[in-house]
């Protein structure tokens, strides 16, 4: 069946203190907050922060599974996500700064010329 049904091998007791589904709920909550932020806010910088929140929700989830399954692959993956996120922030913020310089505005609703 689904990957969860297999019994993971020997999880350290200190990790078992917090059950896995706590992490699931936490990262789901963070992710949904991120989505709502992206959807509801119009300020480009706030949208950007919400995106970061979503990314980190995913990271947290990856780490949680990694620990519970004693599988280090996910941790490597998280490092990649963080590196790419950093690069993306650099480029994204630069774009936002340029938009602001040209339009004195960071409202995403303001930039709507690219249409039919």
């Amino acid at each position: 069946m689904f990957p969860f049904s297999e019994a993971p091998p020997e999880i350290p007791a200190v990790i078992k203190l917090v059950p896995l589904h706590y992490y699931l709920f936490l990262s789901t909550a963070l992710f949904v907050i991120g989505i709502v932020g992206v959807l509801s806010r119009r300020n480009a910088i706030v949208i950007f922060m919400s995106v970061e929140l979503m990314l980190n929700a995913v990271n947290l989830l990856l780490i949680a599974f990694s620990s519970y399954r004693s599988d280090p692959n996910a941790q490597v993956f998280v490092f990649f996500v963080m590196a790419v996120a950093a690069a993306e922030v650099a480029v994204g913020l630069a774009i936002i700064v340029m938009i602001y310089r040209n339009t004195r505005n960071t409202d995403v609703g303001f930039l709507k010329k690219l249409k039919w």
Partner: protein
Amino acid sequence: MPASILLLIPLLPFIGFLINGIGFKRIPKNLAGLLSVAAALGSFILSVYIFNLFQDGNGEAVIAHYFDWISVGALAISFSFQIDQLTLLMLLIITGVGSLIHIYSLGYMSHDEGFGKFFAYLNLFLFFMLLLVMGSNYVMMFIGWEGVGLCSYLLIGFWNKNTSYNNAARKAFIMNRVGDLGFLLGIFAIIAAFGSVEFNEVFRGATAYAIGDPVIVTITLLLFVGAMGKSAQIPLYTWLPDAMAGPTPVSALIHAATMVTAGIYMVVRSNILYSLAPFSLEVVAIVGAATALLGASIGLLQNDIKKVLAYSTVSQLGYMFIALGVAAYTASMFHVITHAFFKALLFLGAGSVIHAMSDEQDIRKMGGLRKQLPVTFITFFIATWAISGLPPFSGFFSKDEILAHAFAHNKLLWGLGILGSLMTSFYMFRLLFLTFFGEFRGTQHQREHLHESPGVMTVPLIILAVLSALGGFIGVPEVLNGSHQLAAFMSPLFEGAKAVNPAVFEGLGLSHATEYTLMAVSVIGALIAGAVAYVIYVKQQSVPAPDSVERTGLQKVVYNKYYVDELYDTLFVKPVRVLSDVLWSFGEFIIDLFVDGFGAIVTSLSNKFRKLQTGFTSLYIFAMVMGIVIILFWNLVVKYNSFIKDLL
């Protein structure tokens, strides 16, 4: 025999074609002309060399295999050349006469802006023609066959700014396609019957068949359809007179000396098959005789110098097929050789006249040219004498051999042949007298411009005149104390056919007295016809009436070429036109309805859907999130609903 030298014979003209074709307009005229003349001459020298090598050998056919070309299942077609007596004769004609015509063209085409292009095409033609006669199987012959057709098309429409010339080129191409279809079906039939297309294997396989076997008859008839197209026999001859739209050297090389004899070459090459099919031979003889008469009779009343020669070519090709039809293959090849000499000479002479007359081709506007064009006149006279079958020039020997064989086979065939020969003599002397005798009938401007052609044009004329005069001596028959070297040379070609069907090869069976009588009849007849022409056109100085005069009765029918072109127009061209109009309207209305309809639907739908692209980024993100939610819902809830159960 070195295979590389053999390969070089067709390759030299091909290289000439590549250089001239790619470098056209960048290569200076002199160099372009020099290159292709050198290529043609090089081939000729190599052919002579190969001929000598072959003479030193034991007379057996040499096959030079280069590579396997096509292998499909059990059928393997190789790229290889076969050198035997027949190939060598054709090689010498093609490269020899071809070289002379190349040299002549240097002068004839010197003022033409397409000079380099012309020589590139001529070289390409030589390449394909050599491939045709050198190939050792029917497929290679077919490649050459198609290639020369292409070159013929390109050269007929060489002055492509003139629509009627383009139409003539297309007519030649399409009529040849009809014949080529027959040839192609013949090759398929050969593959089906023998499982090979190599000459050797096919001919070996053919010996297993009985005389008159329907398989062989079918194959030979199909191949003969191909020969009808290429060699301008009834009913596919009408392209050849129109092909005179091309430059005159082209008419001489392609439409008189070489390409049109490809059909004869093919039948002689397949002589075993034809000897096994007496019915096909009968068909060949009948078609040949009909064509010989029809061509000659139309030639009687033509007024365009090249058209007369064109119908004469059709008629002479008919003679060659008469010879094939009575299984006198040697006589047919003999006539191919002598005809190549004198007809090339006639065309080149006509070219010289046209050149001098500032592109005038109507013999009614010529006359008295013998004083201004002495070399052209003398050579033209020799050629006329030769084609009329008067001794001692070449046409006499070859035509007489054909007529003697026809007589031995069927008296009626001989009678038709003699009739055609009389007409030949008449229209040729008519042409000669109207062009070179009497008073000049052209304009003042043309009269002032009259001049003998330059040396580069007259030298080939003189060489060809010598060949036309003396060429007959390679085949002096035994009755005239000759040994007929040509027959001795070619005899190994027919051994196979002799073994399977000796009946068709039985000697002439004519006494010397009969042969002398036959010769006397044809010579005296030709002389009388020539004398009649002399009386009408020199003594009485009569000139054919202009086109505006209404002709009556039979004369009208013949003058209009028996309305064959009009007949084909009504029978084939017009119905096809109507059919294409119908199909065109079908495409225009029914098909376009669908195509345009789909286009209109897509346009109107996209006009509505494009409104979705508002430019608001938040809307796009919302759509994206909704999409993800739907996918997740589908995958997790609908497909893996047990996961939800696990979770709860």
